[in-house]
């Protein structure tokens, strides 16, 4: 609380970025965890979590006040206009401090107290069970088992406590191998593909330098290779560019020498490092944020950002591994440097391609929990949860989620979840609203008592699953089954407007096929129920039941209208600026410069008339484009009171 210099400012303007002339006037509140803007007239509320704030900027003063630009990690950009300079400064300083959390305990998830008792909270944390997930895959079995070697995180403090290794790998081999790997991250099972018994294993780079060897590490790889009886060799995939891997040799790290390991095929897949990716995304964000760019500027910016090139390289790596495992039946060991960024991306992406389960809602949750959370992807570092070295930040999971989105574009029926699910996960990785993604490893989370002190995201998403379902998904559809074989030709990759321009309502299709189909499916379900009732009635018509029936019939009337009325169509429909502002550039030079012709001042404001239009044109028009743009999705929780 001590950081809030000014809890409330009146007569603040919230600019609409799609039009300079549409602004809401209201009151701005600063609380411990949120910035809240309440519109004076329509009582629209905008809630922004401080933890989502990326940076705050004071812009040069205008005639109406002092502008403040707030950029969020979810690509929302908020422009406020504050009447007084002092107030603006106070808000600025407060927000700077509030958005820079210094200690984990200050994060929102530690104060977020939904009305759930202790037992329920514990149950919620048990919503996903990794042991059950490994069982589902088919381990333990005769060749693979769980090892207790890392129970107290003694061998590797960034790995989970429960790990799966070949039965033939003895304890000394595992420990020896871990000593020969960066951060002790020895080769361990990521995914077991039942059909071919081939596996995806993951590790960090070996400490091979220019010539070092480690017998145990060599035995470890041999054990993995031999645990796939159908194959006489295995792939070792180094996801780094060869040059980077070679540079690492000078510091005593590096990559496997094919001569020292029996029957490995070594392969580089050049995915760039976190710094390159961070800069690339920065450029992409700048492109998506250009004010009315020309097509040339946009495409050129997209090209020079290199973003889609990186997405393509990650998807290509995932595809290579999935092919090796499914088609060749060959096991793969994947690593990069530390084995927690590129390795994680590629292993989880290959799993999505291989296993239809990971294309279901629950499956994707489990996959993230397993490959990302439990295997020590450094969430708090990468997504800047607390003030840290900015060079640690990088859009690693962004790229994974985007690869999944690109796959959804190629295989529209193969995924149970929709784009909104990916965006929701993305938001929560940054929001620090739930405890799942706090800290950098399982050990850290245990030490901090995340399970006891915070809540889990997954049951919350599961509860809202109707919003996240892809209406085209059918469990028995041919596209749903088996291994996905995506194309990686350049033209298959698209700019992800849904994420990067998520809050620019005007840029999205004005009617949504997804929403229409969801509404139709919902209605279909109701119809099925009514049909059953009618059939039962007809089968054994007791005539006295006619009255009862009559009620049912009238109950149906409402949903019958659904098909006819375009209520499920979102028509946020008003014209854009089609003439560089010349046509609708404000009352001054409206139309002909001399204002006499268009004398009615109310009519001259074409833009506001436009906004009006969208309101009465369709009920959907006035509603927010998504759960998180206007109101915090959980604002029904009394989070506000904690402030």
């Amino acid at each position, binding site marked *: 609380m001590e950081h809030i210099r000014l809890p409330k400012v009146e007569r603040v303007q919230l600019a609409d970025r799609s039009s300079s002339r549409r602004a809401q006037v209201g009151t701005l509140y600063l609380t411990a965890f949120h910035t809240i803007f309440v519109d004076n007239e329509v009582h629209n509320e905008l809630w922004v979590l401080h933890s989502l704030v990326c940076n705050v900027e004071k812009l040069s003063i205008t005639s109406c006040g002092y502008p403040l630009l707030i950029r969020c990690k979810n690509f929302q950009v908020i422009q406020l206009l504050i009447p007084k300079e002092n107030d603006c400064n106070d808000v600025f300083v407060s927000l700077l401090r509030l958005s820079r959390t210094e200690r984990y305990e200050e994060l929102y998830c530690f104060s977020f107290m939904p009305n759930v008792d202790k037992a329920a909270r514990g149950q919620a944390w048990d919503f996903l069970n990794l042991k059950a997930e490994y069982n589902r895959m088919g381990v333990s079995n005769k060749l693979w088992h769980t090892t207790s070697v890392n129970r107290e995180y003694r061998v590797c403090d960034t790995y989970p406590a429960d790990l799966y290794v070949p039965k033939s790998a003895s304890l000394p081999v595992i420990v020896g191998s871990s000593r020969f790997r960066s951060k002790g991250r020895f080769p361990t099972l990521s995914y077991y593909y039942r059909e071919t018994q081939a596996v995806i294993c993951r590790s960090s780079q070996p400490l091979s330098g220019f010539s070092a060897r480690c017998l145990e590490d060599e035995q470890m790889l041999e054990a993995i290779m031999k645990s796939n009886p159908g194959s006489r060799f295995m792939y070792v995939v180094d996801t780094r560019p060869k040059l980077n891997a070679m540079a690492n040799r000078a510091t005593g790290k590096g990559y496997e020498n094919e001569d020292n390991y029996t029957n490995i095929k070594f392969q580089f897949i050049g995915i760039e490092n976190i710094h390159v990716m961070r800069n690339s995304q920065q450029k992409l964000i700048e492109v998506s944020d250009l004010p009315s*760019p*020309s*097509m*040339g500027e946009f*495409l050129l910016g*997209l*090209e020079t950002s290199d973003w*889609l*090139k990186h997405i393509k390289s990650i998807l290509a790596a995932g595809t290579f591994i999935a092919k090796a495992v499914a088609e060749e039946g060959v096991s793969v060991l994947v690593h990069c440097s530390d084995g927690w960024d590129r390795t994680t991306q590629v292993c989880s992406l290959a799993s999505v391609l291989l296993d239809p389960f990971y294309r279901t809602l629950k499956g994707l949750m489990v996959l993230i929990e397993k490959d990302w959370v439990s295997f020590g992807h450094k969430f708090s570092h990468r997504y800047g949860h607390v003030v840290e070295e900015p060079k640690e930040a990088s859009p690693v999971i962004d790229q994974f989620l985007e690869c999944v989105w690109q796959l959804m574009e*190629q*295989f*529209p*029926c193969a995924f149970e979840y929709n784009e909104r699910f990916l965006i929701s996960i993305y938001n929560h990785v940054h929001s620090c609203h739930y405890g799942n993604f706090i800290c950098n490893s399982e050990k850290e989370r245990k030490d901090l008592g995340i399970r006891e002190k915070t809540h889990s995201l997954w049951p919350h998403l599961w509860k809202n699953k109707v919003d996240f379902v892809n*209406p*085209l998904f059918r469990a028995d*559809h041919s*596209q749903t089954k088996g291994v996905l074989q995506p194309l990686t*030709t*350049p*033209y*298959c*990759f698209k700019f992800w407007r849904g994420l990067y321009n998520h809050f620019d309502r*005007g*840029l999205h*299709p*004005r*009617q*949504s*096929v997804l929403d*229409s*189909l969801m509404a*139709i*499916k919902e209605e*279909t379900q109701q*119809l099925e129920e*009514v*049909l059953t009732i*009618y*059939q039962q*009635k*007809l089968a054994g*018509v007791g005539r006295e039941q*006619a009255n009862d*029936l009559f009620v049912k019939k009238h109950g149906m009337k409402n949903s019958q209208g659904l*098909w*006819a009325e*375009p209520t499920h*169509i979102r*028509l946020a*429909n008003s*014209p*854009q600026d*089609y*003439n560089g502002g010349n*046509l*609708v550039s404000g009352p001054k030079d409206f*139309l002909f410069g001399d204002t006499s012709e268009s004398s009615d001042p109310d009519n001259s404001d*074409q833009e506001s*008339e436009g906004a009006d239009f969208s309101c009465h044109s*369709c009920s959907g028009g006035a509603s927010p484009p998504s759960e998180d743009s206007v109101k915090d999705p959980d604002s029904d929780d009394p989070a506000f009171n904690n402030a």
Partner: protein
Amino acid sequence: MEFAELIKTPRVDGVVLHRPFLPTVEGTLCLTGHHLILSSRQDNTEELWLLHANIDAIEKRFIGSLGTIIVKCKDLRIIQLDIPGMEECLNIANSIEALSTLDSVSLMYPFFYRPMFEVIEDGWNLFLPEEAFKELESMTDEWRLSEVNKDFSICPSYPALVTVPKDIDDDSLCKAATFRHGGRFPVLSYYHKKNGMVIMRASQPLTGTSGRRCKEDEKLINATLRAGKRGYIIDTRTIAVAQQAKARGGGFEQEANYPQWRRIHKAIERTNILQESLIKIVEACNDHSNSMDRWLSKLEASNWQSQVKEILTTACLAAQCIDREGASVLVHGTEGTDSTLQVTSLAQIILEPACRTVRGFQALVEREWLQAGHPFQQRCAQSAYSNEKLRSEAPVFLLFLDCVWQILRQFPCSFQFNEHFLVMLFEHTYASQFGTFLGTTAAERVKLKLSQKTVSLWSWVNRPQELERFLNPLYEPNSLVIWPSVAPQSLLLWEGVFLRWNRSTKCLDEAYEEMVHIIEYNKELQLKVNSLRRQLAELETEDALPQTP
């Protein structure tokens, strides 16, 4: 001329055909006057029937005595024929080249085609100007149908009947015509029921360097404005291009002479630049280098998406003037037969819900493109692969379709037709068995007696069994004006045309089928529920009857 003269080798056995997504077929190649046919002995379904008119370019290669002809089609497909025997191959190649570039319209396939179906509703009589005018008359009496051009002498590219302001007599029209490029004096394109504003179209005024003016032209244009109202002239060219036109006798309206109008210049490119764009984007899509940089830079350099954005933006602007500013609009470029029509027709799709139905869209194409004198035959003579020196080819109509597709993507429930319908129109403008897109003007079509000698595309499309494929299952009439986004993020590459032959659409087609299935199942259930409800209601009344007496 006999086609036989051009066909030295009418038939070759043992030809192997390679085409996208289908297994290679070995069979017999036959050439007829209008078709290249390949049929395999085993299976009739493996047949290929390709109109010579659809062939844009061919390449031949020889390895020993095995010849290969690569056939590049106007619908952008590329197929390969392996022909044993050098002489046969050369003969075939020569014949294809000659038959695919016949200059005489009357030798085109539509004059020879006999439909295998019964024409129930003749497409030639579906969209008559008189009918359209009757509808206009029911809304307003400010306009009249003029026969001034009935022998096509005032304006050779206009139809016989044009709609003009009631107060302007035919003499004035004749004079105004002399002041406009190609005689294309301002005529009515669209009447906006909601507020009575109109879209007019014309060609550039012939002001020249001396600043000529024409009282009748000024009077004609002003007659379209209601008292106290003003309007916009949308010149589809940049001010620089319009200035240059003066030197060649063209020009633009001086505001001093048209004080009630404000001029806006946009930047829709000339036809030869559009054609270059098409060639480049098709080349980009066919580039197999697998490099993301190369793809994006080629996509950008093609400028195709920029053309789409500019055309759509101009159309939106015109619609905005009408619907939001309450001002009438006059649209023209240079000749008034290309960019002008893109703008006026797209504006109508934005403004007028009827244009988003199958019939309404056909009427729009008939009215704003065919009757309005878009020279289809010249523009669509060659497509993206032709090595010939370009004459007046340009993808003007394809760009219009692309823009419609963009709006369809943004308002997927507001159109009665689907993407297949647009792709089908694209195909038929370049090569067709139907006569609809033959000729360059209404006058020429009359002279060619197309309506007597050929079948209309609409006669075929509107048969229920064909139409079914082109209907959008999500369609719900939307009576509103639809404002598309023209931001680069919102405009997509039209994969259905440009990537159609490059990647399999199996998964996307399955998704479409799934969507259809979901909707059909819903409708089926509604029918079932309704019928059961009726049955139950009958039981109810039976129940009630004995009680009433």
